[in-house]
C-alpha cells in the first residue's frame, strides 16, 4: 500500500505518529532542524486558521517549534513594514498577497528567493501539482517568491428562489446580469438586485473581473488604458449596476456589508469573494436557495480573477532553510487536503479531485457549485487585480475613485477615466 492510498483511509485529525512521516514522504529527513524555532507572521483569516489546526503535526514531524503571531490584514502589514524596514530577523515566514504587494515587496528585496529551495523537497511534495498560474503570479524577475496556500476569487452568489419568482434565468452574460437586475428591480422592490464592492480600495478586486471579461486591459503601450472604449464600457457597466441596482451607500461596501446584505436575504445577485461562503451560509438561511457561478461572460468570455495567499520566507531571516521546512510542509498535498476539508479551496487541482475531498464537497449542493466555480477560476483565471506595476496598491485607489465618481454621478465617464488615466500614468512613470 502506498502512502497516498493509506492516507485515504486514515481519519484526518487523529494521525498515528508512525504514519506521520509516511504522509509527508519517508525519504526526507524532516528532523534536520530539530529544536529550532520558526516565527510565523500570519494574517488572521480562514486560511491560516485551517493551517494552524495542524500545527501540532508540524512540530511532531520536524521537532521544531512554531511560534505564531496572528494579526488582522492591515495590522499584519503594519507590523511587517516595520519589521522589514528595520531589517529585523524576527519574522521567518509570513503570508503575502502576491497579486497586491508582490511587485513592491520583491523590488524592496523582502522576499527570499524560493527557487533553489523548491529542489529540496520530500519525495511526495509534487511541486508540479501546484497551480501553475498561481506560481507564476508569485514569480518576479524569474525568482519564485511565495508558495500558494489557496485559490480564491470573486464569484456570483445568486438567489435561485427570487430569480425563479421573477422569471429570471441565471445570467450567462454581462448583458444578462444587467437585464436580470432591471427585471428584479421591477419585480420586487424590497430586494437589492445587485451588490458588489464599492469601497474605494476594494473595488479593483471585483472590477478587474468585469474589465477582463469585457476584453479591456489596464495598460496598453505602457500607458493607462481606462479611457479605451473597453475600459469605459467596463467602468460604466460596473458602476451602472451598483448605481442603479445596488444598495444605497454602496460606496462604503466591501465584504462585511455585502455578505451581511446577502445573508439576511436582501439581495438577489451578489458578486463577492469565494472566501465569504462560510460567512454567507452562517445561520443556514441561505443554504437551500443559493446558486454559485463565476462572473458571467463578456465579449472576451470568462476571465475570472483568481488569486491566492502565498507563504513566503523573509529575506532577513537567519534560518531560511529551516523556514523552508515549514513552508514546504504547509503547502504539501497532505496538508492542503486537510485544509480543503475545512473549506479552503486548494491551489492543487489534484487535491480538488481527491476522493475524500469530493465526498466532503458532495455533502451539500452549495459546496458543489462553489468548487465548480473555483475550477473555472483555476483554469481560466487571471491574477491581475489592479495595475501590474510596483505601485499596485496605490493604483487600486484610482480605479476605485473612477468607479465611485460614476456611482455618485460626480463626473461623466470621460472625465472620470481621463482623471484616472492621468494619475495612473504618473504612477506608472514613477521609478
Amino acid at each position, binding site marked *: 500500500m502506498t502512502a497516498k492510498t493509506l492516507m485515504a483511509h486514515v481519519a484526518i485529525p487523529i494521525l498515528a505518529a508512525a504514519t506521520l512521516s509516511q504522509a509527508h514522504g519517508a525519504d526526507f529527513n524532516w528532523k534536520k532542524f530539530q529544536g529550532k524555532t520558526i516565527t510565523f507572521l500570519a*494574517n*488572521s*483569516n*480562514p*486560511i491560516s*486558521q485551517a493551517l494552524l489546526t495542524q500545527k501540532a503535526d508540524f512540530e511532531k514531524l520536524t521537532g521544531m517549534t512554531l*511560534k*505564531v*503571531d*496572528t*494579526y*488582522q*490584514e492591515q*495590522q499584519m502589514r*503594519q*507590523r511587517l*513594514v*516595520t*519589521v522589514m*524596514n*528595520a531589517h*529585523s530577523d*524576527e519574522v521567518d515566514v509570513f503570508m503575502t498577497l502576491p497579486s497586491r504587494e508582490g511587485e513592491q515587496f520583491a523590488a524592496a528585496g523582502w522576499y527570499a528567493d524560493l527557487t533553489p529551495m523548491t529542489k529540496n523537497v520530500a519525495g511526495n511534495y509534487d511541486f508540479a501539482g501546484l497551480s501553475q498560474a498561481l506560481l507564476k503570479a508569485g514569480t518576479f524577475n524569474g525568482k519564485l517568491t511565495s508558495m500558494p496556500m489557496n485559490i480564491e476569487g470573486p464569484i456570483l452568489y445568486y438567489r435561485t428562489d427570487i430569480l425563479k419568482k421573477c422569471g429570471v434565468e441565471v445570467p450567462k452574460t454581462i448583458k444578462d446580469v444587467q437585464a436580470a437586475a432591471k427585471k428584479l428591480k421591477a419585480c420586487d422592490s424590497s430586494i437589492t438586485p445587485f451588490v458588489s464592492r464599492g469601497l474605494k480600495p476594494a473595488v479593483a478586486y471585483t472590477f478587474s473581473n468585469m474589465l477582463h471579461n469585457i476584453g479591456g486591459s489596464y495598460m496598453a503601450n505602457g500607458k493607462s488604458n481606462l479611457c479605451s472604449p473597453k475600459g469605459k464600457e467596463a467602468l460604466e457597466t460596473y458602476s451602472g449596476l451598483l448605481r442603479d441596482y445596488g444598495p444605497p451607500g454602496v460606496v462604503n461596501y466591501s*465584504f*462585511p456589508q455585502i*455578505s*451581511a446584505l446577502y*445573508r*439576511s436575504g*436582501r439581495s438577489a445577485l451578489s458578486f463577492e*469573494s469565494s*472566501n*465569504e*461562503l*462560510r*460567512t454567507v451560509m*452562517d*445561520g443556514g*438561511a441561505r443554504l437551500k436557495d443559493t446558486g454559485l457561478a463565476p462572473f458571467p461572460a463578456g465579449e472576451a468570455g470568462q476571465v475570472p480573477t483568481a488569486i491566492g495567499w502565498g507563504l513566503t520566507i523573509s529575506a532577513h531571516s537567519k534560518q531560511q532553510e529551516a523556514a523552508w521546512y515549514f513552508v514546504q510542509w504547509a503547502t504539501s498535498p497532505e496538508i492542503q487536503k486537510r485544509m480543503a476539508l475545512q473549506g479552503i479551496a486548494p491551489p492543487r487541482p489534484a487535491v480538488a479531485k481527491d476522493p475524500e475531498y469530493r465526498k466532503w464537497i458532495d455533502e451539500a449542493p452549495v459546496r458543489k457549485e462553489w468548487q465548480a466555480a473555483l475550477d473555472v477560476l483555476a483554469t481560466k483565471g487571471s491574477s491581475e487585480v489592479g495595475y501590474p506595476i510596483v505601485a499596485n496598491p496605490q493604483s487600486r485607489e484610482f480605479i476605485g475613485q473612477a468607479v465611485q465618481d460614476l456611482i455618485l454621478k460626480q463626473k461623466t465617464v470621460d472625465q472620470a477615466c481621463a482623471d484616472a488615466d492621468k494619475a495612473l500614468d504618473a504612477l506608472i512613470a514613477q521609478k
Partner: protein
Amino acid sequence: MSDAQTTDRWIRWLNTLQLVVAGIIILTPTAWMVMSSFKPSFEVTAYPPTVIFSPTIQNYIELTKTTPFFNYAINSLIVTVGSTSLGLLFGIPAAFAVSWTRISWPAILTLAARMAPGTLFLLPWYVMFRQVDLIGSYTALILSHAVITLPIVIWVLLPSFDSIPRSVFEAAQVDGCSVTRILWRIAIPLVGSGIAVSAILAFVFSWNYFLFALVLSNGDTKTLIAAAFNFVGEGSTQWGALMAAATLIALPPLLLATLVQRWLVAGLTLGAVKG
C-alpha cells in the same frame, strides 16, 4: 408655595429630564453592543434589527476557545497598570511644578509625543527597543504607553493645581515647609478629584491603545485590544465574538471608574480647607 420653591422644583424636574435624554443617547449604542454580544453572529447584522431574540453565550465561549483571552487580559492589565502608575508618578510632581512656576514648556513637551501620529513612532521605537533587546518585553510596552498616560495626567491636573489659592502654599512656606513637602502634605490631598479623573483617563487610553503593542509585543505579551481586531476579516468576520470581546474589554475601565467615583463625587476635602 413660594416662588423660589417652584423654581427649585422646576430646575430639578428639568435636570432629570436632561439626564434621561442624555442617558438614552449615550447608552443606546452601548446597550446595542452588549445585546449583540448575546446574539448568534449572523443575527447581529440582521434587518430589521432584532430586539427579541434567544440569548446565547456562544460568543463568549468562542472567544475563550479561539484566543488566549485571559492571557491577553493579564498582559493588558500589566501594561495598563504599569503605564498609569508611571504616568501618575512622573506626572503629578511635574503638573505641580508647572502650575507653581507657570512655566509651561515641560507640560507642552510631554504632550509633544501625543501630537505626532502614533504611526510615526512604530519604526523608530522598533529599532530603538531592538537595540536593547526589549522587543516583546513588558518594559517596552509600559514605557511606550507611559508616553500616552503622562501628558493626560499632567494636563488634567494642571487646572486642579491652578485652582488652589496661592495663600495656602504661602502659609505653609512661612511655616518652613519645603516645596516637596507642600506637594505631598497639602496639594495632593486637595486635588483628589483631579487625580481620580486623570487616573481613569490614563487607564482607559492605555487600555484601549493598540498601535504600539502591534510592533513592540510578541505572541506572549500581546494585549487584549490587539486581539479584538482578529474577529474582523474576509471570510472570518465574527460580529458576535467581536461584540463579546468589546463588552469584556470595556468592563475593567468601567469598574475602575465606578471605584474611583468616591473621589470624584466628594471634592469635600477642598471645601473643608477653603471654606
